[in-house]
């Protein structure tokens, strides 16, 4: 079934694209904002927090939660679009 195969390849490619984008954000909010650029971001304030410190102890965790839910919604849509979802 070559047509079927092509479709699965397209599905997998879209899946990898999604992963790449989400993991990029994952890296930026934790390793980027929380560690590598923490001193620069600490110059900016968020209420009583220094921004870099906020990312390291609060912001990154909130972002992780949001990322997983974006992934869930996006993958469910992709599964339906390519007709590989579960009944």
């Amino acid at each position, binding site marked *: 079934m070559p047509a079927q195969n092509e479709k699965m390849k397209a599905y997998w490619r879209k899946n990898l694209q999604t992963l790449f984008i989400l993991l990029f954000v994952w890296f930026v909010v*934790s390793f980027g904002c929380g560690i590598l650029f923490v001193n620069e971001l600490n110059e900016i304030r968020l209420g009583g927090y220094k921004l870099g410190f906020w990312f390291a102890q609060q912001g990154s*965790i909130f972002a992780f939660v949001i990322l997983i839910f974006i992934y869930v919604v996006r993958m469910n849509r992709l599964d339906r679009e390519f007709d590989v979802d579960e009944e």
Partner: protein
Amino acid sequence: MEILTWTYILVGLSFALYIGIAIWTRAGSTQEFYIAGGGVSPLANGMATAADWMSAASFISMAGIISFAGYDGSVYLMGWTGGYVLLALLLAPYLRKFGKFTVPDFVGDRYYSNTAKVVAVICALFISFTYVAGQMRGVGIVFSRYLEVPIEWGVVIGMCIVFFYAVLGGMKGITYTQVAQYCVLIFAYMVPAIFVSIQLTGNPIPQLGLGGSIADGTPLLDKLDGVLTELGFAAYTSGRKSITDMFMITLALMVGTAGLPHVIVRFFTVPRVKDARLSAGYALVFIAILYTTAPAIAAFGIFNTIDTTSEKNISELPQWISTWEKTDLIKVNDKNGDGKVQYVADPAVNELTIDRDIMVLASPEIAELPNWVVGLVAAGAMAAALSTAAGLLLVISTSISRDLFKTFRPEISEKKELRIARLAAAGAIVLAGYFGVNPPGFVAEVVAFAFGLAAASFFPVIIMGIFSTRINKEGAISGMITGLLFTIGYIVYFKFISPETNTSEFWWFGVSPEGIGSIGMILNFIVCVTVSKFTPAPPQAVQDMVQEIRIPRGAGTAQDH
């Protein structure tokens, strides 16, 4: 009522609840014993995963570690939550589709080799045992501090409880008990945090309170930075570790979290692939509630401690200090005899020593909350330790009955397999209890390294098994062994053989033993890919299987094929 009475009542009630659930949900088949029959709802599984994941260390010690490490404590916050993103995106859905019971199952099938499976079993056992001994110790400590029984008796009581519901109920019993344990532990953690936050900052939400201002209008964190630097400590919001080391430790903890067998196995219990994804999301929500509160408890705790003791008359110290002095968790020693407490960075002058665990354990008393809250915190700490211990014991028993016994004696009946699984769980509890009573000096150290080992052994092999069809058994086996040996070697060298050189000038690339799992993981990846390149590709059937697990449709309940 007295604190002790409340503690007995609340801990007793919570135990009765767990045992009741265990009797109600006991397992009848291997499928129920290993994966709770595969019919757990994503929400319940998310809660169970959160309880499974958050150990005695998360509940009792983490806030205290952050209190004294300040910004550097962020490695634990990011490391122990960020791993769930990897788990949800890269592992959980595919392993659920694969549809068997254990991580070594996957490694054995994907790499068509019992050798690979046995290497995976050894990694799983090693990780789980180091981890479970720490939990049993935690149960004992909570018992001895709150119920005034000796640590040994505390461990024995804890063993009996876990024995009862893990051996009887298997994964099914554990799952529903963990749901109850999550509710107990999160309630116990939040109540004191909310009250302290109101007292200090006027904001009932601790996550906002941490960024709030204290009575005189200065932001809490700025005030804390000022107070600490004045006393000679580093500022709370600035780092002391190097950026490289922060980076490597965080990475090792994240990847290690995603590679822990007792966490991965939880995603085999839900009915569908999309439930596995959703369930990881719920799990992280439940974990994040505690993990975003912990830094608030940390800052409130250290601020309150300094505020109520520093330069105060020893005779006028608050009540909780003398209460906890009895347990040696806090010590006041008036070295210069001026009748006041000097809390400073210089150890020769410092007169106040504080154990990190006090930040959570004494928080209800610091906030002058009613006695029942103290009992509640005890029940919460116990729930955290018991739930993690049970999850780990299940991995140990499954590894032995299924991955070792069944692999080499496939003809045994299901009834017999179930009996072996229960026997293995019982044996593992006794062994864990023994280490809880007689902890080898290195247990506490080793628990932290379980993450490095999980990162360096499992994670790369599972990821490559899903995202590449070309990786073969030669690559996987040599990768796992390289990662494991390198990481163990580095840790053993700096921790046991030559501890005097355990400083940043001797570390390779400035990476501490806590963070070396990241390098081990990279080595594993490199070896795995290189060896696979020069050896034959996996058989067509295995390559087809990999294609198959990438697609959600057709995932029945996990079963024994």
